[in-house]
């Protein structure tokens, strides 16, 4: 093994030919693990560095032979029941249904008296809360797989597809559909893009998210057809508005019933369509095959993968070569990934340590590099990643997360440092968000109800920062005009019903022992400690001035530069040191 340090030469940029054993090093193995996995401990880096680059890449990409049956399946809390199906599109739809039929969501309307629809409304909010909380548990389960799976690329690709076929629980409102969709992404993670695309087009979460239910013969809804062309396959500029309208007809009647894909024959438009210059009686799969036959599709998908794994900027020439690799392999994803991970370009200065880690990657790789084997319960994983701009199962729009530089703002950079601190020095005032409602209104209503206030008084609006002196805003005045039910009370009661059923997330803090890490690596001086932490946690060398300050900091904290003197009391200071390193701008790069 050569002792190549850092990135390869600048001539490697845009060169897709493979690196050889002489080009391999610890640094480059670490770079590969940063991208194709979720980072790694020094020990794992050394293991891959001892292989040839071909073998190292194969160990990540050809993961099917690796046994992962020890990973536990998701454990459902049991929050769903049949009376919830089909779940009404909105609260007004639920109460209208109850008014019209005397029953909704398995709850009958009270024959007489005040707030006759309150229990229906409570049940509606119950499911919104329960599905959301259960989705957060699915996210925990998935993060745990990212951290511990022996096939990390499978989970990383599932994360990529989740951002590509972005679907949010906020609209789908059913954690079971979100879980099924994730399983689809895991199953086809590095498989064939055609299988995955057809699977995604028939996926109940996707169909719910893109309003498939209203795409019917004679009145096609263009939402799904537009997204499939614009976001999933070709990108803007390669199709016309007419193509979208015609493609929408081909998808008419595609729908879901609870967790199953169904085609409603009566609503399917079986007539002739013209899509991208081809004419025929296409259905959805027919349209997908036309799209896949477009040269631009392979380029679009390949370059999006490249931007996710390598870097933001790529030349048109590289884009077309990557597209050719995907096309030549008939849309099989694994060969393309293998080409990318082995390429000189991947190890060139333009690619190496230039990628801003996404929040989920930051959190998981932080835990990985600390040597943890489970996702801590404190801080809350979803709260952390959401405050950093990426909550699993809740992408902000149908375009997924913007990636790259959009992950970092002044506010978010500070949040990232605070995340590191919350792992190293867990907050003893931590309040579990799966028990304690994040919405201030719910907490206020809860307190007032307990004080014996009537529902109307208990649900009067107003938060702590604004509106203390008046109530003039229309939205506040109109909120509870309906006497049949009170939505704020239902929101409170729904939360209460949900937390009775949803299993709590275990709230263990991270078992961190930096003292043991220092002694296991036989580090003798504060300078060696700073250098070791730098290597283990950063992909870029510590800037000399900062390095000197950090050594000075640790010397001052410990009262010595000798580890042996400070061994019995250095843990807190080592954690501060690591917090400082993880707060640097450089820690955000992988």
């Amino acid at each position, binding site marked *: 093994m050569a002792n190549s340090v850092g990135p390869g030469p600048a001539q490697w940029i845009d060169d897709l030919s493979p690196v050889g054993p002489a080009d391999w090093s610890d640094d480059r193995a670490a770079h590969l693990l940063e991208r194709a996995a979720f980072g790694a401990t020094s020990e794992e880096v050394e293991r891959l560095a001892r292989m040839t680059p071909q073998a190292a890449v194969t160990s990540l990409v050809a993961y099917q032979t690796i046994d992962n049956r020890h990973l536990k399946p998701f454990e459902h809390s049991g929050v769903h029941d049949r009376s919830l199906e089909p779940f009404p599109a909105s609260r007004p739809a639920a109460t209208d249904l109850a008014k019209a039929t005397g029953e909704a969501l398995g709850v009958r309307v009270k024959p007489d008296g005040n707030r006759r629809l309150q229990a229906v409304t409570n049940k509606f909010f119950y499911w919104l809360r329960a599905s959301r909380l259960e989705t957060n548990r699915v996210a925990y389960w998935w993060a745990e797989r990212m951290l511990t799976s022996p096939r990390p690329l499978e989970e990383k690709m599932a994360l990529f597809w989740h951002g590509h076929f972005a679907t949010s629980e906020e609209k789908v409102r059913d954690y079971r559909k979100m879980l099924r969709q994730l399983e689809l992404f895991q199953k086809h993670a590095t498989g064939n893009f055609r299988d995955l695309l057809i699977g995604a087009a028939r996926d109940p979460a996707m169909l719910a998210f893109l309003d498939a239910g209203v795409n019917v013969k004679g009145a096609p809804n263009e939402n799904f057809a537009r997204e499939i062309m*614009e976001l999933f396959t070709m990108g803007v500029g390669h199709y016309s508005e007419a193509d979208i309208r015609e493609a929408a007809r081909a998808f008419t009647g595609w729908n879901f019933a609870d967790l199953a894909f169904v085609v409603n024959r009566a609503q399917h438009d079986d007539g002739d369509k013209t899509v991208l210059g081809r004419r025929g009686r296409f259905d959805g799969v027919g349209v997908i095959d036309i799209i896949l036959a477009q040269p631009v599709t392979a380029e679009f998908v390949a370059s999006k993968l490249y931007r996710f794994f390598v870097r933001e900027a790529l030349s048109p020439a590289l884009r077309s070569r990557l597209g050719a690799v995907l096309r030549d392999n008939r849309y099989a994803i694994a060969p393309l990934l293998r080409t990318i991970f082995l390429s000189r370009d991947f190890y060139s*200065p333009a690619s190496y340590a230039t990628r801003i880690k996404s929040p989920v990657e930051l959190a998981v790789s932080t835990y990985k590099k600390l040597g943890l084997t489970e996702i801590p319960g404190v801080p809350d994983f979803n709260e952390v990643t959401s*405050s950093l701009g990426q909550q699993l199962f809740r992408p902000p729009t149908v375009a997924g997360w913007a990636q790259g530089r959009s992950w970092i703002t002044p506010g978010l950079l500070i949040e990232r440092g605070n995340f590191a601190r919350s792992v190293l020095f867990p907050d003893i005032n931590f309040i579990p968000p799966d028990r304690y409602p994040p919405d201030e209104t719910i907490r206020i209503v809860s307190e007032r109800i307990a004080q014996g206030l009537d529902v109307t008084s208990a649900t009067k609006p107003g938060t702590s920062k604004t*509106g203390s002196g*008046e109530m003039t805003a229309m*939205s506040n005045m109109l909120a509870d005009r309906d006497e049949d039910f009170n939505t704020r009370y239902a929101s409170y009661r729904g939360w209460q019903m949900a937390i009775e059923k949803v299993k709590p997330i275990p709230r263990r803090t991270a078992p961190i022992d930096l003292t043991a890490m220092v002694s296991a690596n036989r580090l003798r001086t504060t300078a060696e400690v700073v250098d070791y932490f730098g290597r283990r946690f950063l992909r870029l060398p510590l800037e000399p001035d900062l390095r000197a300050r950090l050594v000075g900091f640790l010397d001052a904290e410990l009262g010595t530069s000798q580890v042996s003197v400070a061994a019995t009391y250095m843990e807190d200071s080592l954690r501060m040191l690591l917090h400082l390193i993880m707060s640097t*701008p450089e820690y955000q790069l992988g």
Partner: protein
Amino acid sequence: MDHWECSRRQLLKAGLGTGLAGALGMPAFFERTATALAAEALASDRILVVLELSGGNDGLNTLVPYGDDAYYRHRPTIGLQAPRLRKIDDLYGFSPGMAGFERLYKEGRLAVLHGCGYDNPSFSHFSSMAFWHTAAPNHGEEYGWVGRLADRLRPGGAANFVVNIDTTQSLAVRSRDHTPVVFDDPERFSRKGFFQELPLFQHVAAASGDANPSRKYVLDVARSARDASALVREAWARYSSPIDYGIAPVDLPKVAALIAAGLPTRLYYASYRHNAFDTHVHQGDLHARLLTYVSDAVSGFLRDVERLGRADQVVMMIFSEFGRRVPENTSLGTDHGTANLMFVVGKPVKGGHYGQPPSLTQLDAGDNLVYTTDFRRVYATVVEGWLGYRRTEELLRGRFEPFALFG
């Protein structure tokens, strides 16, 4: 405070004595300089707040042309009936929950700009939003128009000149010289750490000549974070307001808090996030509710800046990436459209209708409104008319005639 008062105060601030230069018979050279400085100082007090309504707001159901039968022919089901509307004249009425907008209009503080759009409109949220963000329809452009404006108003960049309240930075504020202050929750906008760690937080490495562009970027952001976080946190801690902003204040109390604290920020960017206005299905209740929130938040904000004594300094511009299809769809909603309304609000604004409302009978081939006002004319209006920056032709890459909305 009238303009004369304002300029006098600014002259005092600028250290030019009493501001009575002309009266004291000052030499012409000084007088000219004083006037130029006064104009600059006047303009340098002015704040523009841009509010984005993401998802494509249905302008036709926002300010409803109830006097036009064609509206009801296109929207037999989701059309808002005249008696429910908040009428502002014989033709138009606001959606029922928009009491705030109705009042602002009647006070003469709300300008409606009709038919705003651009040639070859995109029906993609992302493309069209990018066109509005960059003021460069159907062209690639690296920087946002607010960012480029900042580069021109304050070349070389300055701390805290641009504030973008959001979890991610908008393309609109992306700038060559400035690193916008982007934060979401002011209470979280501060580094947590031990006393001993604090000096090290102040250290941000120099990024000049860095070969790794991502490293340079994160270092610039680190510097902006260091310079802004204490100010923002302090401003928010000190802020509280009796004003009711409604259920969804759209981050505007945060803007008010920073204005109240006297941050040097000239350009604020906030948005109603997450494509909220993308109302394809059953839009009635949802859309009315969103508009109520916006109307409450905007009118609350303007009353709040008035309370703070800063109403003469603040103007807000409101836009969305496109309007919606004129005929309703079969799902009781509307699909992506083209031309739309924009609003400019604030005490300094001369309220009323501007621009030609697009015809509801002569639609384009896709049943969309034909735009009558290039949206960059409205940008030019606030840039030139409000912020006093005259080289809009360079900024916006073309000549766009401003509307006479101010003074």
